[in-house]
């Protein structure tokens, strides 16, 4: 898409999102669900950065999501901070988490990276469960919605207000993301995905790039988590669990891995779909699983990815996110890698 068309589309999408609360009664989708869509989108953007652009299986993002929620919650509960402060502290908590485990993750690539991420996430999960005095344990942590912190206006955000707050942050996040992936840094990440060895031969320290990508990814996940925690006024251990990481990966792939708006599309389908289907039938999990399966088998490029290919545009078509220059069947390739 050319620059101006892209800008127009982005503006249109944001305008549509801004109309959300107005449309809510007629489409029977609660404002809190819309906020959830946005929070999940931000987290999925983090996954997208690692998975779609850098080519790393990001299975640990729920850990950062949860850290964001708990960080915000703990600060509200103990220090009675304002909403922006709570947000910042939540984000910083995830950032700190990524600084802590990043060096371990960096040592590996491929599926090991993903599994290590899951493992560390599970350690955070156990900590949240065990240290009841701090985190409320499995009962979770209830906290009140923080005040706006504006000198003249001592108020908290209600449902609709919080949605707009989330929307503004989402807009900023996606703008930052767009700038990031178009920058030399972003281009390097894509190069790493295509062939990390080549990047290293060019003299670049791929580890450092990946580490920064991980930090950005965690920050986004933390932002989403802090927003989600404040949406529910509740933080609980399942927010750290690897199943949620899997959901974020699905969202990223469903929408279109490696595209800018993919996470939003994926998140909308997932969150709203799950909400609607679970109202209709208790068998919603079968539908969810079927969507996973169908997406993987039939739409691996996701909705936006497939759309981009169909419309034949070359700039946003994600250079095939998960195949480098290969021609042989993977098992053969796999065996060949082992052989020599």
């Amino acid at each position, binding site marked *: 898409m050319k620059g101006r068309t892209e800008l127009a589309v982005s503006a249109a999408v944001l305008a549509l999102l801004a109309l959300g609360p107005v449309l809510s009664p007629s*489409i*029977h989708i609660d404002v809190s669900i819309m906020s959830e869509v946005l929070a999940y989108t931000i987290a999925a953007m983090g996954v997208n950065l690692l998975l779609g652009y850098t080519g790393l299986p990001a299975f640990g993002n729920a850990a950062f999501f949860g850290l964001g929620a708990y960080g915000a919650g703990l600060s509200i509960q103990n220090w009675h901070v304002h909403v922006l402060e709570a947000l910042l502290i939540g984000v910083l908590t995830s950032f700190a988490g990524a600084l802590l485990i990043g060096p371990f993750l960096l040592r590996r690539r491929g599926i090991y990276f993903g599994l290590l991420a899951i493992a560390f996430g599970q350690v955070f999960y*156990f900590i949240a469960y065990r240290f009841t005095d701090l985190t409320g344990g*499995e*009962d979770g942590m209830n906290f009140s919605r923080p005040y706006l912190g504006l000198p003249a206006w001592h108020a908290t955000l209600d449902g609709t207000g919080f949605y707009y707050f989330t929307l503004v942050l989402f807009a900023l996040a996606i703008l930052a993301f767009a700038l990031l992936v178009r920058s030399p840094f972003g281009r390097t990440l894509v190069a790493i995905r295509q062939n990390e060895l080549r990047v290293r031969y060019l003299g670049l320290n791929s580890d450092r790039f990946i580490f920064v990508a991980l930090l950005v990814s965690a920050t986004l996940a933390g932002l989403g988590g802090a927003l989600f925690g404040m949406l*529910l006024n*509740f933080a*609980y251990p399942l927010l750290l669990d690897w199943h949620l990481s899997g959901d974020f990966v699905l969202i990223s792939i469903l929408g279109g891995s490696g595209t800018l708006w993919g996470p939003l599309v994926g998140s909308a389908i997932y969150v709203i779909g799950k909400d609607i289907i679970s109202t209709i039938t208790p068998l919603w999990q079968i539908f969810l699983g079927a969507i996973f399966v169908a997406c993987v088998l039939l739409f691996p490029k996701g909705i936006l990815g497939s759309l981009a290919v169909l419309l034949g545009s070359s700039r946003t078509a994600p250079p095939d996110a998960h195949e480098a220059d290969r021609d042989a069947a993977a098992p053969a390739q796999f065996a060949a890698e082992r052989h020599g």
Partner: protein
Amino acid sequence: MERVPNRRTFIKAAGAGTALVAGFPAFIPRLGEAADTIKIGIVESETGTYAALGENQIKGFQFAADEWNKRGGVLGRKLELVIEDDASDPGVAAQKAHKVIDQDKVVALSGTISSASSLSVSGVSSSAGILYIDSGGHTDDVTGKACHWSTFRTCHSTWMETHATGLLLAKKFGKRWYFITPDYAFGHALEAGYRDVLSKIGGTIVGNDLVPLGATDFSSYLAKVEPAKPDLLLVLQQGNDAVNCLKQAGSFGLFKKVAVGGPQVELEPLWSLPPDARSGFWGIEWYYKSELTLGRGNARAHAFVADYSKRYNEPPTARSAFGYITIDRMATAMAEAKTTDSVKVARALEGTRFSSIFNGEAYYRKEDHQLMWPMWVAEIRPNGTPGDKYDLFNVIDMAQPDQIEQTVAEKAKVCTMQYP
């Protein structure tokens, strides 16, 4: 080669998909329903870990609602239950609570099994000023530090569970106790309750194994019990953990060597255990086949058991009772208050003494909104009785609510309620 669907099929599919998504709300049955019903939101675990218990609570809710509707409903309007699945996830529970309040415009809420979900739903309902009766979440906090004028609770609290069983079991077996405790909030709360009992009767703890989350193998802990020679082993696990623990205890032959008991057990997990693991003395919250639990000559209780069993081919469990009592009392309070306004209904609910499908009378205590009703202790019959394989409990004792729950004064330290 990548398989990308061809353009035409894709556009067709996209078109169909969009139409489906846009038109989806129309498919949801409850829209366009008879406008003049009283909608009550039920946020319950239909899937996930707690599904078995949630299903029975739903049956209880439905039973009471149908009973009232047969008599013409409440205030001339039929009761309609709007049931949503929380997937055993407290975040989903909170979102579903938002949904039923904002979209379906329910006038009251009930449900939940896990304490976490009870707390999160209570948070949502109290912000909205809508009545919520926690049917099945046991944490003390619901009527303790998280209490609220709009939140009530039907099932017993954790404190009641430990005190009902503790005093009786000490009398029966002795005061040297060994604990196997799930190492998280719930387990710690139970442990604290039992410590309180022991401090009052001068008992000792000869061992306490904290079992971390996720442990499926209890052999290491069970192996330590016998050498410590306790009078009583208290297993504080619930649900699937309890099933695993008891199954393994049975395979170690522990039941033959040590008296085993616990704060609470339910029929649902017991039915999923093999007979050699069904043993011990446990707290139970209600039972379908005992005069001690139902009350002698309580025609209403017996009718409930008979009709429910016929309708569902299975006897009602304590969970069914929670559901039934909750909706029944909610409807009664609405009828009494002549309105569905939450404040007035809450006022009508609290303090009123009533009899229902259990032995004696009860009331939702005014100061913390906990339902003060008795709790019982039963010994498990591994194979039921000759005519009834479900009949696993031999109920041996009953404890009165004011003896087993914290006093109003103690509760006042953590719970203050303010009506709007």
